[in-house]
């Protein structure tokens, strides 16, 4: 898309939706940034020839005519969208009454403009970070917005489902924003999937702005179709004593480049990032997980586990960065890959960047086959080989699966993993 054309599209879209002037201004700036900035580089992940930048002009349309089958997929969720269309918004009344906001980004821009303006691309991520963040800032059409007021504790997990509409070829550019005020607590599940099998270029960003002393559990289960080429970016920024736990499951069937980045800005803040991924068939998934300790006494843990089948490629970059001044901080990470095919490729690159001496930093990485001792044990008890193998893999990924608080989701995720592993045998 030419810059002038892109600018015209963006401005027309912004006008159609009657967006506030500040937003149109930011979008216009982002168009200029997009033209100027380079694509981000991730070690060992080459995605430059992917059709990620084939993005349509944004429209304010909502998709008509969802079948009951599609609608039923989000039946138990608190918030459910297909493309830019909100299908279900069912935040429990008891939660709503405490001032919690859960709505789509378009609604938030209209009804909660100040909150959006103060947080969107302001703290967790800057719009002019690179070409892909600028693209999102210019062309984002919707997403979800969650706000939890100070001291509000939401006990039941909130579940959000977002389906990319691939019933016809079209791109998907969305931005999701989570803001938790002081000492609030929330447990959030974001499930990203596909409807249909047409080609799609998917750009999905999540920003989490965690206020002082707030606790956020964020589970992301990404299950996009093989025909989706995706850029997934989840960012967190933490104020003092905030806790953010990411549990991320990359169960996509298509090409994915993922950038998961958390900044421990506040003293005593803590982030735990757990990522699992299954790569199969011809797929490439590149996952770059970084936590940066800025605040003193901050704690970062990264655990990544991946299973690779067939001709697939899976790249895990784990980056622990402790900047000068983050006294008494810890950064730990573990990257493990299980290779189930001789034609597969796996990279586990655990990187430590340490600019401070009063720290404890470590990493471990391993790559291997299915544990022979475990297999032997299971086989010796009469368990057939395919089942034994499945059990060992299940155990390998269990560390992240068991972190999910909802039993229903644990089952759902196990089923997804089983399905991905079964693909191999088909």
């Amino acid at each position, binding site marked *: 898309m030419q810059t002038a054309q892109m600018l015209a599209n963006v401005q027309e879209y912004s006008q159609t939706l009657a967006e506030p002037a500040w937003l149109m201004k930011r979008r216009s700036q982002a168009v200029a940034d997009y033209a100027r900035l380079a694509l981000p580089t991730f070690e060992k992940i080459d995605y430059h020839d992917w059709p990620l930048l084939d993005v349509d002009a944004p429209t304010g349309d909502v998709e008509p005519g969802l079948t009951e089958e599609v609608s039923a997929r989000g039946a138990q969720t608190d918030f459910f969208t297909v493309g830019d269309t909100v299908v279900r918004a069912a935040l429990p009344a008891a939660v709503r009454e405490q001032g919690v906001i859960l709505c789509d980004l378009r609604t938030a821009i209209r009804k909660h403009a100040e909150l959006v303006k103060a947080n969107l691309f302001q703290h967790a991520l800057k719009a002019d970070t690179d070409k892909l963040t600028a693209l999102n800032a210019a062309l984002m059409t919707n997403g979800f917005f969650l706000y939890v007021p100070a001291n509000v504790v939401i006990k039941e997990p909130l579940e959000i489902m977002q389906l990319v509409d691939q019933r016809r070829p079209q791109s998907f550019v969305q931005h999701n924003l989570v803001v938790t005020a002081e000492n609030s607590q929330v447990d959030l599940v974001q499930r990203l999937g596909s409807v249909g099998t047409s080609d799609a270029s998917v750009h999905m960003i999540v920003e989490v702005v965690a206020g002082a002393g707030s606790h956020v559990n964020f589970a992301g289960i990404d299950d996009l179709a093989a025909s989706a080429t995706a850029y997934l970016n989840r960012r967190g920024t933490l104020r003092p004593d905030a806790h953010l736990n990411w549990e991320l499951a990359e169960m996509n069937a298509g090409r994915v480049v993922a950038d998961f980045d958390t900044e421990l800005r506040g003293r005593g803040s803590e982030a735990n990032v757990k990522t699992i991924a299954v790569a199969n068939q011809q797929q490439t998934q590149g996952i770059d997980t970084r936590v940066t300790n800025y605040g003193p006494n901050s704690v970062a843990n990264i655990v990544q586990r991946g299973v690779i089948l067939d001709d697939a490629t899976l790249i895990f970059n784990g980056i622990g960065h402790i900047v000068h001044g983050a006294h008494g901080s810890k950064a730990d990470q573990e990257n493990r890959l299980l290779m189930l095919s001789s034609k597969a490729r796996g990279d586990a690159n655990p990187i430590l960047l340490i600019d401070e001496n009063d720290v*404890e930093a470590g990493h471990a990485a391993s790559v*291997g086959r299915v544990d022979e001792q475990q297999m032997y044990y299971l086989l010796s008890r009469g368990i057939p080989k395919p089942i034994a193998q499945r059990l060992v893999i299940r155990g390998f990924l269990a560390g992240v699966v068991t972190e999910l608080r909802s039993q229903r989701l644990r089952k759902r995720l196990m089923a997804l993993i089983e399905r991905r592993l079964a693909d191999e045998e088909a």
Partner: protein
Amino acid sequence: MAEPTKAREVVAGTDNYEYGFHDDVTPVYSTGEGLTEAVVRQISAEKHEPQWMLDYRLKAYHTYLQLPEPKVGPDLSGLDLVHMKYFQKATDKKYRDWNDVPDKIKQTFDRLGVPQAERKYLAGSSAQYESEVVYHRMQATFEKTGIIFTDTDTALQKYPELFKKWFGKLVPANTNKYAALNCAVWSGGTFIYVPKGVKLDTPIQSYFRINAENTGQFERTLIIVGEGASVNYVEGCTAPNYDSDSLHAAVVEVNVLANATCRYTTIQNWSNNVYSLETKRAQAMANATMEWVDGNLGSKITMKYPSVYLNGEGAHGTMLSIAVAGQNVDQDTGARMIHNAKNTTSSIVSKSIAKDGGAVDYRGTVRFGRHSDGSFAHVECDTIIMDDLSTSDTIPYNEILNGNVSMEHEAKVSKVSEAQLYYLMSRGISEQKATEMIIMGFVEPFTKQLPMEYAVELNRLISFEMEGSIG
């Protein structure tokens, strides 16, 4: 282990780098400052080289001009390549009797302890001063076995076929910019050929010395260890302190044939005005073992990632390294293990210490190729950051293209353990002494692998480096 207190007494009152002296030796031949195609031709002519080597140098020179600076690693912009002297010859001949070496050069190596070391425990020894080797000798008993130990210039003249067969095969000129530079202007270095089945347990040593200012030293070392043979090679490096910088851009190629063993030990202790940009590669054939033992104590900036290409079934490669970086020093080192054959194994153990604002960075690769079934790799990187000014990056890449391999990697970065300090100090040991003991314990896996005399020397150097690092 050396007695550290005693070591401190020995060096008390000296400057912080004891090899920083220089001698006023006027070279008998020099190409002067700067590098042009004419300089490359002059070097080749001065050495009476065959045409193919001149052609090789010229081609490499053009590759050097085309290649970019390294994309990752330390900032090299301070390196003055314009005023550098690329070729300086200190003597007209190579000496086999120490008494014949010109007095001033002899004094230098006497002060560095080179001849004493040879008398005591070496099978052979050589000394390079600026661009060329001035002295080399192999003890007669070892020479009888058919081992060739000479400088690389002489090897080109005396063993043209053997030389041409192996030269430049592991490190082609396009490997990186400084390898290309070496290919264009290489001079000196060590050539070792160990015939099939000959096992040499007593070490052979080469000592590299830069004396003049703004000097480029382009050592080229080529080692071939025949089937079932073994060799233990040790090199040491020092230079004077100057305000201007010097460059040591070495290329080392080691071929370890089937069932052979090579241990290559480097104690790099350049003064803090030397850029040490090295390209070291080895290949290990079936059931061969290649061991790099690499100590980096000096230099201003070191970039060195020795590799082992495990090309034969059952080959084994190891890297055991320590790096110590003080003020204004960046030790950017690591190792590369490339598993290209079945049942190959590798191990990397890296120990680093940063102090007084120094940077120790580990950069390494373990790669399992398509045909590396049954292979295994182990990597361990430990770093101690002594103070609030120093930094450390650990950047390992693990690339796996085979489903039937396993790899383990671990790294730790921390300050000196407070628990250990507390334990020692509660027993009446001073903080300085306690810190030194902890550091010595930290590097022990490395020193343990050195010939005894080197271990003593290294402990002394580290103890010396740790001077004044407390309080």
